């Protein structure tokens, strides 16, 4: 977020003085000119600026400024002008006249010069902006290196919440969320192009900037924009000679942390405890246990993680771009390649991506400009024949007493307990098969802009955009064999008998958008600036997908025709959607002090009945630039910028609406199937439910009040916003209040409401001391959502209301028992209130957890639960259930540069949320498999066979299977942990070589850099091993791919 700086008066004086004080040089054949080039905004020297003579007759090579911004150039005496060019700056031409010293001040290229940032259907100058919009430039994005664009943004934008589900290559399962509102709308080059996954796969080198519309200013995009809008603007070419830019990184990843599982000696002791405290008989004899402890031959421990996974995974990214152009035509071409490997020793899980972009702008006639933007992507994700979840589960649950191969003979993969999830075998595509996903994506935009002659300030624009995505998936599940070695024989255990299959899936989706736009701006009487934008927009989407599947009776080859025709299935579906809108915006400002913006969107959607499918949504915002007022300038000169602004807007949103709810009909999808004749199946039709002809969109109302402050020539800047979004008409079923004897559920209705509110701020400081330049930026966001109205049946009593009511409460409360500590002895257990229902406290042992009898009724049950935690229950896959997100997200970045060196450090953190695992990580001996090593620190007896023997305390209760414990797994602070964390998200150190060293070779800039990602994490010691940023994942098991710590080395080349 470059801030425009006023050219300092003193500096100008200084330069003028310099120029005047030198004598004029005349009548030399050649002469030498020296000087220094500085940046207008920061007054810092610019390195690598091309300085050349603008002379069509002589072809004199230019030069390049050094690390201090100095240059020296010898020019013919006939030369009249020096031209300074540099990436991201406006070209500058200086008349030489008779000067031998020419110092130049370069300004940032147009967009940055005036702080013009991209907003909905247009651009705004930063200082006249009335909405809450944050803009991030390519340079700031690129300080973090990651395959996903989302990870390159995390921690850098106030109010932008990002959380990773896992680090699996090619999954792009980052949750992206603006201000806690939900999944935002994505706009790429002016066209709504949905999908966080698509967004994350953009080539970051192609991106000029990204704007985040965080308040009502997003509402102009209509449906979907209630959650904020992310606008990506890609790079366009500049006039001038072709410049090339290469950016390459190679690096390796390691998991941030992975909990250690028990080894054979630890496991067998815990397993024996479980047998004793469960069935009363030991699992194995003491002599056997001792053999595992001693690790005698045949009793070694297998570390399954180490068997299947390696320490490091390789990745590389290369991007090459070219840009340039003539007076009339400018071009930008970008190409990128990404290759991300995985931790699997088999190397059979990986991701590859190719991006291509061609952005061409040309002037067709004097008043007509054409833009053709084409972005293409091919990417491919490959996994072995079982998914990572199962492979990783295999490394967790498979017993350390098992071995990968029967009789340690690599010819015979072993049967393993408990679930035959031999991770080494599951991860090998040659054995289990594979799954491949290929996406081909094309985004095209053609725009014609007509600047109307004779009407100054009026532009007409027509845009057509067609996007296409083609998906191909192929899954091959091969049958394979596992073996047990018994009595000198390999006993075969065939796997996937009868379920070995091959499937091919195809999908194709299309999107066609048309826009017609008119822009007009003018100034009336000098002080009244008025501008307006009106747009008609329509969008159509259609898609078709199909899948084929056959089973193998006998596996031959991975081709669909090679599998059996006896067991083949296929499926397919089609979908379509459409919307139309007109929208408009009028801006007015008086002397740049008083700002007003009025906008609306009137739009219709296919998904509601014709009578009610259209809606009108207004937006208003205003600002007051107090710093433009004379009185303030006189009063407090230190204030260079002070603006108050506010916005309010309404917009309709879908939020889970099922289309065509108003049409009654039978459906074949929902009916059960029945076999009326032996061997022949009839697909049943399900009866129509009740229709709701009044179903409509959810109305979201967003309000924001903000203040922007700049002090001391904007060396210190502060932006602060408080915001609120109320949603009404959230969909809910009236089920609970309809008698359940009716036999059908009511359709969705617009019943519920909620409110999300919070604040965010950014504080920045930039300064330069000598050659040392630095910047610090901190951002912070707090957001929380509460339910307002929640449809439900009547409460039966006030306790029911207190315990089960959710209205007017935060949506992130988790009810829990109050954990008091561990029972120290059996006397304490027998005198303790009953906490395990019918089983009394019969199953509790010393070391077990005890909970508080909150209501003092002598029984610890559901009535003793209190809303103790922030979080949410429920398993989840890619989506965060409401409430799981951190309420606080923050980032802190530092950048410094000194001569050729530059460094960026980004800290990022989150707070106010909890995680709660299930299954292996939070259950001793889950699935009767291996268990985390931390459970070994447990209560146990000196002589397990003697129930009266002394107890030795530990962190965890005595090891038992979950059917044999009392209240061990009740929700409490034992299992639900605060996951707040702070991490060193990224650090980058770069060095730019002095251009003099290589300018002769036609190279303008060489910069090398090293970066690290997720380098350090500070969090609760239990949670840290799971990585607090990561979601618990499927079944809350924590078996999703580990988040990664990455080390990269890269090079930038400009030539």
């Amino acid at each position, binding site marked *: 977020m470059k801030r425009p700086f006023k050219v300092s008066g003193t500096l100008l004086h200084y330069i003028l003085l310099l120029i005047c004080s030198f004598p004029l040089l005349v009548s030399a054949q050649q002469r030498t000119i020296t000087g220094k080039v500085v940046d207008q905004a920061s007054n810092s020297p610019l390195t690598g600026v091309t300085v050349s003579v603008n002379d069509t007759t002589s072809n004199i090579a230019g030069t390049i400024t050094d690390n201090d911004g100095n240059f020296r150039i010898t020019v013919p005496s006939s030369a009249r002008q020096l031209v300074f060019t540099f990436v991201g700056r406006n070209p500058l031409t200086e008349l030489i006249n008779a000067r031998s010293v020419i110092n130049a001040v370069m300004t940032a290229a147009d967009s940055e010069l005036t702080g013009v940032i991209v907003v909905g259907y247009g651009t705004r100058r930063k200082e006249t902006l009335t909405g809450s919009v944050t803009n991030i430039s390519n340079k700031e994005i690129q300080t973090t290196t990651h395959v996903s664009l989302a990870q390159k943004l995390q921690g850098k934008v106030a109010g932008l919440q990002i959380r990773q589900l896992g680090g699996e290559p090619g999954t792009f399962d980052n949750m992206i969320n603006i201000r806690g509102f939900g999944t935002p709308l994505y706009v790429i080059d002016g066209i709504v192009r949905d999908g966080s996954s698509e967004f994350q796969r953009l080539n970051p080198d192609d991106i000029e900037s990204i704007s985040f519309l965080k308040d009502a200013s997003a509402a102009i995009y209509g449906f979907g924009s209630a959650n904020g809008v992310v606008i990506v603007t890609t790079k366009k070419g500049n006039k001038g000679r072709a410049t090339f830019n290469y950016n390459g990184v190679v690096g390796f990843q390691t998991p941030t942390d992975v909990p250690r599982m028990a080894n054979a000696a630890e496991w067998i002791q815990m397993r024996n405890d479980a047998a004793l405290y469960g069935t009363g008989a030991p699992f194995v004899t003491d002599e056997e246990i001792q053999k595992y402890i001693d690790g005698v031959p045949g009793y070694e421990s297998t570390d399954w993680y180490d068997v299947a996974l390696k320490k490091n995974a390789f990745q590389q990214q290369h991007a090459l771009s070219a840009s340039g152009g003539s007076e009339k035509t400018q071009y930008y071409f970008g190409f990128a390649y990404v290759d991300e490997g995985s931790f699997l020793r088999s190397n059979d899980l990986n991701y590859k991506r190719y991006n291509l972009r061609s952005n061409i702008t040309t002037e067709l006639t004097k008043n007509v400009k054409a833009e053709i933007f084409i972005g293409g992507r091919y990417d491919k994700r490959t996994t072995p024949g079982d998914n990572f979840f199962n492979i990783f589960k295999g490394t967790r649950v498979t017993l350390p007493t098992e071995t990968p191969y029967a009789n340690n003979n690599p010819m015979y993969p072993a049967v393993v307990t408990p679930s035959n999830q031999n991770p080494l075998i599951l991860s090998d595509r040659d054995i289990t098969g594979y799954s491949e996903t290929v996406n081909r994506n094309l985004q095209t935009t053609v725009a014609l802009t007509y600047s109307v002659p004779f009407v100054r300030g009026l532009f007409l624009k027509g845009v057509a955009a067609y996007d296409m995505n083609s998906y191909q998936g192929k899954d091959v599940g091969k049958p394979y064999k596992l073996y047990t070695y018994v009595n000198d024989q390999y006993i075969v255990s065939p796997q996937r008998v009868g379920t070995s299959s091959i499937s091919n899936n195809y999908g194709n989706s299309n999107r066609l958008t048309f826009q017609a736009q008119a822009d007009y701006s003018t100034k009336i009487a000098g002080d009244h600036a008025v501008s307006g934008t009106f747009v008609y927009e329509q969008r*159509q989407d259609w898609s078709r997908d199909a899948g084929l599947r056959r089973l193998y009776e006998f596996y031959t080859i991975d081709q669909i025709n090679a599998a059996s025709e006896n067991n083949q299935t296929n499926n397919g579906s089609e979908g379509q*959607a459409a919307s139309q809108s007109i929208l408009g915006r009028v801006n007015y400002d008086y002397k740049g002090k008083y700002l007003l913006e009025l906008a609306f969107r009137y739009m219709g959607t296919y998904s509601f009945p014709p009578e009610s499918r259209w809606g009108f949504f207004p937006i208003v915002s205003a600002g007051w630039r107090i710093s433009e007022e004379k009185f303030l300038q006189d009063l407090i000169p230190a204030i260079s910028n002070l603006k108050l602004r506010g916005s309010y807007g309404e917009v309709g949103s879908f939020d889970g609406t099922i289309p065509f709810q108003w049409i009654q009909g039978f459906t074949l999808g929902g*009916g059960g199937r029945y076999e*009326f004749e032996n061997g022949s199946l009839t697909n049943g039709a399900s009866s129509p439910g009740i229709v709701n002809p009044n179903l409509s969109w959810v109305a979201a109302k967003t309000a924001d009040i903000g203040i922007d402050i700049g002090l001391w020539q904007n060396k210190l800047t502060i932006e602060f916003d408080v915001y609120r979004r109320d949603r009404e008409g959230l969909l809910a079923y009236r089920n609970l209040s309809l008698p*359940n004897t009716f036999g*059908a559920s009511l359709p969705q209705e617009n019943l519920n409401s909620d409110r999300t509110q919070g604040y965010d701020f950014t504080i920045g400081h930039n300064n330069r001391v000598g050659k040392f330049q630095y910047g610090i930026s901190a951002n912070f966001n707090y957001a929380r959502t509460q339910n307002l109205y929640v449809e439900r049946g*009547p409460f039966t009593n006030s306790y029911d209301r207190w315990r089960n009511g959710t209205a007017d409460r935060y949506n992130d409360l988790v009810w829990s028992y109050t954990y008091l500590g561990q029972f120290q002895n059996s006397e304490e257990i027998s005198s303790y209130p009953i906490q395990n229902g019918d089983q009394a406290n019969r199953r509790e042992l010393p070391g077990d957890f005890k909970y508080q009898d909150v209501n003092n009724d002598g029984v610890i049950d559901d009535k003793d639960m209190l809303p103790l935690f922030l979080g949410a229950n429920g398993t989840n896959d890619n989506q965060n259930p409401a409430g799981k997100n951190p309420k606080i997200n923050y980032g802190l970045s530092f950048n410094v540069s000194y001569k050729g060196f530059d460094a960026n450090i980004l800290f990022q953190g989150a707070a106010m949320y909890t995680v709660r695992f299930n299954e292996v990580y939070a259950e001793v001996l889950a699935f009767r498999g291996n268990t985390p090593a931390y459970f070994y620190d447990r209560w146990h007896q000196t002589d397990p066979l003697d129930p009266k023997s002394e107890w030795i305390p530990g962190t965890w209760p005595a090891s038992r299977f979950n*059917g044999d414990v009392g209240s061990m797994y009740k929700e409490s602070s034992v299992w639900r942990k605060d996951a707040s964390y702070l991490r060193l998200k990224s650090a980058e150190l770069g060095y730019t070589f002095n251009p003099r060293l290589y300018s002769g070779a036609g190279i303008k800039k060489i910069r090398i850099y090293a970066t690290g990602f997720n380098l350090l994490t500070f969090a609760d010691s239990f949670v840290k091993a799971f990585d607090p940023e990561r979601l618990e994942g499927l079944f809350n098991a924590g078996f999703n791919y580990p988040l990664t710590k990455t080390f990269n080395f890269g090079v930038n080349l400009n030539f």
Partner: protein
Amino acid sequence: MKKYIWLCCLATFNFAGCKKILDLQPTDKIQASVIFGDPQGVKIYMANLYFQLPIEDFTYFRQGFNQNGGDPNNGGFLPAMVTDEAMHTEFGDFVGDNDFQWWDQGYKLIRDVNLLIDVIPTLDIDATEKAALTGESSFIKAFAYFALAKRYGGVPLMKTSQVYEGDADALKVPRSTEKETWDYVFELCDLAIQNLGTEKGRRASKWTAYALKSRAALHAASIAKFGNLAPLSGNAVTQKLVGLEASVANAYYKLSMDASQAIMTSGQYSLFRPTPANPTEAAENYRMIFQDPNGASSEAIFIKGFTLPGNNQGHNYDIWFQPAQAANGWPHPGRMNPTLDLVDVYENYTTPGLSSPVVTTVDGNTTDYNGYSAAKNYIRYDNTNDIFKDKDARLWGTTILPGTNWKNTPIIIQAGYVKPDGSAVIRTKDQITIGTETFHTYGAASTSQYSGFDTYGGNNTRTGFSFRKFMNQSGPIVPGWNQSTTDFIEFRYAEILLNYAEAVIESGTGDVTTAAKAMNDIRKRAGHTGDIPLTSANLQRERRVELAFENKRFWDLIRRREYHSQFNNRMMHSLLPLQDLRALPAKKYIFVRVNVPNSNPRTFEPKSYYRYIPGIGSNGLVQNPQY
């Protein structure tokens, strides 16, 4: 405003294309005229109704019906495991309040069938087709109300479909009395009987309607007769919403008797292979009825089919209940452990008419569950199934006994051994080498070679018995979800005979000779040769044995109000086969009767005779007692 849109369209693009772009049609909805305009369309609708029938088949678990979609991982916990028939390998749960509920789904089926009943008069089909539809829909509705009545007692009777017009209160219907509810079931059965044809098939016929009535009326009659064994109290009782007067018992027994008799005298049905040559043949005949009901069409009155492997098509009996040795790569087999309590019930051919508990000691004590003691004088057997030698063929057809063959593999179920010094190692993995031979506690060295007692993967029986009935013996299992396609018999002739005999003996009316013959015919099919007298005890034992694992025992305990007396702090029992190494070099086995390891005593709460009614906050109904 819309006018401007069209103007914009006109200015920029093709007008006609614009105007229609929002007028899209759904791709998944079908109009009523398409469905009901043709018998084939009606059949499509019927498929969904039959699918919803509360048939307690292979997909019926405590979570409810049709538990075979997607990943139906419910642990394989069956209703049989809350009766005295079986234990789960791992779980010890008993009847929970939320188990076996069927309320919302029941009323959904009733609404769906009422929608069809509404439309029948308007259909353009001939009168016989209309009658058939009336009969079929009455059968479905009767089936649904029977399932509701046996769970909840009296329920709201939705005789016609309701229309929601925005007022939820208008939809509230109070509970009818339990008697009214049963009477409505019988009324619907009669309507079905009148209208349905006699053609046998997989859709309802006159015979399926009679069979339903036979079962339902016996249930109602039993509640009337035995209700006083477990008196309940509360509003639901005083308003007669639960419970029946004892005085109606005989009338209901008569309804059952008549319905059964209609089937028995029809000449349409008979027992499958009624005269086996020997018990071995009888065991195999009995097993074959269930492995392929289509081969036993004389006995199967109503079959629910499982067609293809796959979601909502196949089921999971074979993977859940296969003995561990036959798991074929499936990680969770062996969940069904028939109890010693059930095994004890089967007669010995040598003592017809008497349950024959398994005798393990010379003193003949069959109530000592204190475990192994070197001091006790155990009977030694040459192998692990000799002890069951004279047992009823149906035991062999129902369970896998230790050491018997399954899919050509001897299924090894051994709990331990007695060392030569008399000390025993039981249910602990151990081995001992004596001379040159090594003995293993579980009868073999590797977990893949035995099926009993090792708690290693939770896959080995802990009662000493594995499961055979319904299991497909031909070929290895396919280790995936929903791969079994064995069909299920919902009504079979043997049950009708037993219903008839029970109605006669319990009511003290009717033709005792025919009733006794009905019971003895079934026994003869199982290899018995002589007749035993028709007594209530003999008949109930016969029901337990003949209908074991057909999800009848749960309801028999309920309707006869025996649950709370049978399960009063009750432990279930296991039989531990031990190799007796004291007998070496002879290979000998002894058996120990014990409580099922790692299990808790079970007590049935009388309130559980009825399920609680869900959603009383909004449906305004009177709750069942003690909930």
